[in-house]
């Protein structure tokens, strides 16, 4: 098979069978199997994080400056069950997690982790979704144009941007934007930092900088992959057949070239989500975005175990679900793939 397919898919899909695929039934079965498989994965993630968090030196109640009295210190441990042996705490925590109760945050007495995450999740999601759309639009179009107009200035510009993008860390991009906008340009654009209170039009203006910072690296990554897969597709025989049929250029490019070259792009959507998540931690810290990325860093520093675990589980579940969606989408996009 001449077409270059991206990195082999995650375990469950290898090897391909080229038999006619009874899609409906096997797909449902496959999704169920993957969802069931997610539970042990999440449990494993919880276990690792739980013990790592508890190994970290210092307790949630240690603080600088005025110390808590010994009595208060002990009362707090009793209330949050930290006085029990670590294994009992773990079992107790697993019990509550199975009822979707992720406990209460030490940093915010009176608020459950569920409500805290629910409160700050929209900002991470809004930023992540906006960046994802920007990344797909800009990354793919850049890659396709570079491939179609190969060895033109557009191609060199796209490849150049892709390589530089892959090298400049996103917090550097963030810093440069801050230096430029806060010192020099703010007079004109008044583009201040991410302030979710601005209401609709102002919100978009404020999201420019964080979204740009979050998207810069993935756009480069995506453009590079789209370009090479489109170049491969252009070299295939069926494109020549399409031309020979007298189809218009637009039809040839969209229906024949892109329909094939964008398949590998779907496979890298998985690592793209992971990059967005790690990126959100950095961007939220640089731009003071009240999302769960930033609260994760604060939770670690404050040894807020329920918050650390809650955020990690959310992120891990998110990655697992998104990867499943990618794999299922892959089946619908590439008819040759048949589910194990």
């Amino acid at each position, binding site marked *: 098979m001449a077409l270059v397919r991206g990195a082999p898919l995650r375990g469950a899909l290898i090897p391909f069978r080229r038999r006619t695929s009874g899609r409906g039934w096997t797909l449902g079965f496959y999704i169920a199997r993957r969802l069931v498989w997610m539970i042990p994965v999440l449990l494993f993630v919880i276990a690792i994080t739980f013990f790592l968090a508890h190994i970290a030196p*210092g307790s949630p109640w240690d*603080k600088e400056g005025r110390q808590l*009295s010994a009595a208060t210190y002990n009362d707090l441990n009793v*209330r949050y*069950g930290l006085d029990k042996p670590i294994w009992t705490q773990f079992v107790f925590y697993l019990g509550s997690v199975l009822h979707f109760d992720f406990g209460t945050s030490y940093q915010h007495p*009176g608020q459950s982790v569920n409500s805290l995450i629910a409160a700050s999740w929209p900002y991470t999601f809004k930023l992540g979704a906006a960046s994802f759309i920007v990344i797909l639009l800009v990354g793919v179009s850049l890659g396709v144009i570079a491939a179609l107009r190969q060895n033109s200035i557009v191609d060199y510009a796209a490849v150049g941007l892709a390589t530089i993008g892959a090298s400049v860390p996103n917090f550097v991009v963030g810093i440069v934007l801050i230096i430029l906008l*806060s010192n020099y340009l703010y007079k004109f654009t008044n583009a*201040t930092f991410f302030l979710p209170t601005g209401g609709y039009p102002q919100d978009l203006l404020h999201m420019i900088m964080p979204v740009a910072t979050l998207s810069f690296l993935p756009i480069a990554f995506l453009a590079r992959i789209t370009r090479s897969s489109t170049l491969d597709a252009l070299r295939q025989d069926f494109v020549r057949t399409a031309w020979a049929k007298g189809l218009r250029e637009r039809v040839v490019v969209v229906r024949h070239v892109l329909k094939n070259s964008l398949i590998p792009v779907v496979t890298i959507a998985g690592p793209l989500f992971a990059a967005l998540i790690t990126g959100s931690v950095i961007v939220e*810290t640089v731009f*003071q975005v009240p999302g769960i990325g930033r609260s994760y860093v604060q939770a670690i520093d404050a040894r807020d175990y329920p918050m650390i675990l809650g955020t990690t589980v959310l992120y891990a579940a998110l990655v697992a679900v998104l990867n499943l969606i990618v794999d299922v989408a892959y089946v619908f996009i590439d008819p040759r793939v048949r589910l194990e």
Partner: protein
Amino acid sequence: MQVGNRIRAIALVSAGLFAAAACGGTSGNGVTLASTQELRVNIGTEPASFDPSQTQWVYEAAVDRNVFEALLKPSKDFKTVVPDAADSYTIDSTGTVYTFKLHQGAKWSDGQPVKAADFVYGWQRLLDPRLAAPYSSFYLSVKNAAKVNGMDPKDSGLDAAIQTLGLKAVDDNTFQVTLEAPAGYFKWVASLWTGAPVRQDVVVKNGKDSSGNDKWGAVAASAPQTVVSNGLYNISEVVPKDHVTLTANPKYSGASPKPTINKITLFEIDDETVAYAKYKSGELDMATVPLADTEAVRSSPELLQVPELTVFWVDFNTTKAPFDNAKVRLAFAQAIDRDSYAKDVLKGRAISASTLIPKGMRNYRPDLGTAQTFNPATAKATLASSGVSQSALTGLKYTYNSNSPTSKTIAEFIQAQIKTNLGINLVLDGTDSKTQSKRLRTLNYTIGGPSGWGADYPDSQDWFDIFVTGSGNQFNGWSNKAYDDATNAGDAAADDTKRDAAYETAEKALVQEAPVAFLDQRIAWWLVKPYVKGLSYTPNDDWLGDFYTYTIQIAQH
């Protein structure tokens, strides 16, 4: 850009310096008011709770002070206390029974009258072990407080024991506190924001979370509905991790005059650089100046320098060699060039300190600090006379919190000073804030820091208690009978001259024995927009004017 809480300095105006001069009069003094009277400030970190009994940090106090009204509050010049929710108070002949007369007709934000029983319930929550209030130690002077607070949270007899506390509502307007023993400083304890009244029915209505925390004070979007308060302002909006908005409380009928500012937005920007950038882009009305931008603003008309009542020092672990030897500690203290640190490193934003009590407080005695003054020659001599071998001084680890840029800079500065002046190579051992606090608390270190103290109130008792044997706030494992006796005498004495003499002996012992090497007292650099008028601030403000918000006005701009 530090993550998490840093040592947020508690500021105090020094006696003669900035007294009440800057406090503006009412709108009548020729200030044309802007159409919107809104103030936007940065408190740096999201408060853990609005429930007074669950707060401890300065930025939490700044919110609660405007939403609740405690019995008393510090005067504008921070020298004494003035009435707040209580119009007046009397002390009986034994000096142990304080009777507070509440302001007639004061109302809660939901229209209910403020009753003495609300204060009784509020103070009981501060001592109830099940709630583990962080500031409970301040109220241990109340009768039976130590006994109740020390009980096991699961003890069934707890509710009955709480009734035995020296707290009584004589009638709806009279709240009486009985102490274990007379305490000259108790008026200041009554001025703390944590002593605000709390409505029992509101707490019960909102119930508890799965870990037993009362939900009424939670910093959540639901706060405007759950928090019922008696202060000048109500909580109108909470956007977690971003800001809290307060609006003037229409039903307020307490003693304070009506505020001109009707809306205060408190942002939670933990990065000083970002806050400074927002000040410049017009999104904040005041902001602190990052150390790096000192030169840029030194001559700016918007600059306000407010000396803070905070002193920072380096900790020695007196229970482990080589710092069990007083001479070695003294040698290290004498080898640190405090003036260069204040002038060059902090660019003049600090005053060097070689004694415990900061400048601007009653017992400020720089003359007693001669033992620790910087002198490389005497430092070397003292080290030599200590008889400690060179090998015992090698490989000493200096532990510090490397998340906060200020303590990182101090660590590197101390390392260089000790290297040049004593020829000893300290190994820097940085870690995050929690680990650092634990190391200090469990004496699992040799030398480290910086630790510091900010005045909760300008009374020496608040300071000298730190180094008393067995005090939770001392990380040096230091015990000195002469110091303990002098401090206890100072705390108990009623007459000021007797207290000063006692505290003087305590200060001398502290400086001489040097369980810590004193470093500096910070000066806060603030930038305030020119259109912010009538600002009257005390050194304990988290943002300037947060004690007396009703004097602030926004001029036309």
